[in-house]
């Protein structure tokens, strides 16, 4: 339980920093200049979820960027917690290590 609370604190910090980064980036990044634009071909996309993101990419690049960062952060956190849960079942001590340099 104590380890779980500790993990939650870590994830909370990590996500707080992630949100701050997104907000900073939104403020700092200038509008996309008129460069060469790649358009997603939604005619060949079968999955509804992929079609939604491909459409979003074509229509609203800013929202697509926000989704990309948020989903990456969420999926990274989810995998981190899942792997932590799996590793805690192996019997290894994952809360300490010897602080040897040599």
């Amino acid at each position, binding site marked *: 339980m104590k380890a779980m609370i500790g*993990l939650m604190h870590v994830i909370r910090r*990590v996500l707080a920093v992630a949100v701050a980064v997104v907000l900073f980036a939104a403020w700092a990044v200038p509008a996309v200049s008129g460069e060469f634009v790649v358009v997603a071909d939604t005619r060949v996309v079968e999955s509804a979820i992929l079609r939604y993101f491909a459409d979003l990419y074509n229509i609203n690049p800013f929202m697509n960027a926000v989704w990309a960062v948020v989903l*990456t952060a969420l999926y990274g956190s989810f995998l981190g917690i899942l792997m932590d849960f799996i590793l805690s079942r192996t019997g290894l001590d994952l809360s300490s*290590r010897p602080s*040897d340099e040599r």
Partner: protein
Amino acid sequence: MDIFSADWLYMYMPIAGMKVLWPALLLIGFAVGVIGGFFGMGGAWMVTPGLNIIGFPMAFAIGTDIAHIAGKSMISTIRHSKFGNVDYRMGLVMLGGTVAGIEAGAQAIMYLEQVGLVGSVVRWAYVVFLALISWLVFYDYAKAEGGTRPDEFDRQAAEGVTWYRALHRINIPPMLHFPVSGITCSLWLPVLVGLVTGVLVGFLGIGGGLLRMPALVYLVGCPTHIAVGTDLFEVMISGLYGAFTFALKGRIELVSVFVMLTGAAIGAQIGTVATKYSRGYGIRIAFGVAVLCCMVSIILKEFGHEISAAVIILSAISLICLYIMKVMFVGAAQELREKRQSRAQARLQNFRRMR
């Protein structure tokens, strides 16, 4: 080789408009997860050529790589944090310098682009820095090996190259204590280290783990394990920032990011847990070898030997990955064996007491 023509092995990438062999993505993610978790780096120097080889256009390879690095570093940071390897205070103090440095480095690149020197200048600057880092790592090891007896060895920080000691004597206020790293120094030391490594990151267009990790060890005086964890925390933040800017430019293929992250989640655990069974100098020597391979591949690329460069990089990734996996599995097996033995002894003592 008909096995690779099976339809189910390919995924359609809607933005890049191409089909990609997803097991290859999974494998790249896994290998880079192992190496990144062990050395505390994002691994852009490994992922970009790997993605390029399986058919990604270079612009998509770089953007997808940065987004994947952000997620992977998050997974590794969570694991390192549980070991107590992340000095959040140090990471946040360095962050201001890092962001300012990245912008300054990017401006330098824009100038070089205007005068038409960007390609070769950046590549040779990169080679010089990699050569310096690898020399520093091996020189430090040789000095530590020759200069101290194991019984009088300082077990907390670098003993061969101790530049951080001179830098700690600069008492410009405010002085800060970093309990996780076990050091007290001027606030300006980590900020300046962040700024200088940030300039190089912006200038060279890399994640920065290759530069920041040794800087934390030799200039700031962090123990190696703390340097690895704290550097991953920094890589995660700069990766998220990079992911946003590249996604805004439409250069991220989110589907492949997710596939690579799935492989990286497993790899990062192996790499991170392996740091527990490896001594600080073990990590540094393996890191020095990785830096050397990276340097050789860039030199080969500069002289037009693209295939040889890719072979060197992929061979280095495979061998270092196998070495780290061996460290982790041998260490974990030994720990579990010792636990079983101590439990058996406890049971035997209980049994004797009962009798």
